[in-house]
């Protein structure tokens, strides 16, 4: 049986982790490779690195981070942030990423999803969608770190991404991100109903119950950053709690 995936996320800028400065057991809490190795040792099923300030000038630093993390990591690595073309994706794969996540560039040019799936395969193509609730009871996609309205219905965009060849939807609730109030379960259920592509739930996790609820709502994987950053709750603690709750997890 396919297990549920616990996916820690590192937000990185200029080669350093920018969130979660307090972290026990690490001499340098800002080093992505050290943190990645710790998460794998705790039982993380995958790792996501999002370069929150990816610019053409920072491209080299981004690849250096991927190379350093790859050297210590024996679980899948997804990298996103500022990916604008299939060649950008190729550079990250050459550095050691297994999957590449696209967001704003795909909204601007949806054919980028087809191009990535054709060249690297769907299993390599992750489409990240930042979704914000609107006044009509639905969700709108936002781009550029949530700063711009993409003028697209987020659920319809998720369906289109799957049809174009995305292998996963990294679905972030713009409303819940950073709040600790739990994932937007209605959003997860709405997207799960319109696509057969696996969903990674993101945004709002603070407790194990939040992860369990997201899985029940239709997510195959749960991404969390803040929950693991203070070092009090480890990935292993979360997996033990989920297993006790009846979920299949990788031991």
């Amino acid at each position, binding site marked *: *049986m396919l*297990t549920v995936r616990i996916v820690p996320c590192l937000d990185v800028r200029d080669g350093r982790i920018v969130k979660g400065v307090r972290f026990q057991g690490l001499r340098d809490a800002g080093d992505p490779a050290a943190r990645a190795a710790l998460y*794998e040792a705790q039982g993380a099923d995958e790792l996501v690195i999002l370069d929150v300030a990816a610019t053409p000038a920072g491209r080299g630093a981004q690849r250096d981070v991927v190379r350093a993390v790859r050297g210590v990591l024996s679980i899948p690595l997804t990298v996103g942030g500022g990916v604008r073309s299939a060649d950008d994706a190729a550079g990250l794969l050459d550095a050691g990423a*297994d999957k590449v996540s696209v967001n704003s560039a795909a909204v601007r040019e949806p054919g980028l999803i087809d191009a990535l799936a054709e*060249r690297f395969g769907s299993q*390599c193509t992750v489409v990240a969608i930042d979704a914000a609730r609107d006044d009509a009871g639905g969700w709108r996609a936002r781009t550029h770190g949530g700063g711009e309205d993409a003028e697209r219905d987020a659920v319809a965009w998720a369906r289109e991404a799957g049809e174009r060849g995305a292998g996963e939807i990294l679905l972030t609730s713009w409303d819940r991100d950073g709040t600790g109030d739990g994932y937007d379960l209605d959003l997860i259920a709405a997207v799960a109903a319109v696509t057969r592509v696996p969903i990674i739930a993101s945004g709002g996790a603070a407790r194990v119950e939040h992860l369990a609820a997201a899985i029940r709502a239709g997510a195959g994987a749960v991404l969390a950053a803040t929950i693991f950053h203070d070092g009090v709750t480890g990935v292993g603690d979360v997996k033990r709690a989920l297993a006790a709750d009846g979920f299949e997890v990788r031991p």
Partner: protein
Amino acid sequence: MNAPDIVVVATGTANTASVLAGLARAGARPRLARDAADIDGARGVVLPGVGTPHAALAGLAAGGLGEALVRRLRAGRPTLAICLGMQLLCETSAESPGVAGFGLVPGRIERLPDRVRVPHMGWNRVLPDDAGPAGLVQEGHAYFANSYRLTHAPAGWRASFVDYGGRWVAAFERGAVLACQFHPELSGAWGTALLARWITGAAEAAC
């Protein structure tokens, strides 16, 4: 014992960097294969692969790489085929109709059924066929990322199975020829140990 000469065939679409890193963690000093002579001469050859069969096979046709691979597979020389690499060893695939695979083993690759989410993405339990002889693959959780699968184990090979939308072939192996639908290079300590066993087998195999 010196690390055996292991080469990785770059099809142009694979996560080659991950495969090289995984082999290095497992004790090898891998390098990329430059040409068919590298594939003929290496102690062990790794055929990774993501993307579609027709794109990968087109990449391998250049320079006779595919022919060199078939030569060493037919001779039973140490070869590791991963994910799409495994599917290329079969006869045909529903993913690329009309394109012939290497045909090392009988069987057609079919798409996973619609009742499950596709791709099959994540960690799933691999169970070797108990009835067969001991082999490289042991029970454990492996990382998969596939939309297509081989439903029937080829006769004469030790098979391991996985369950997702039905039971299908997670790996088949004979001696030091190992084909995995999952990604050993991304399967944590379990995968690294499997790579190490295959590397050891490659080092000990008679050339």
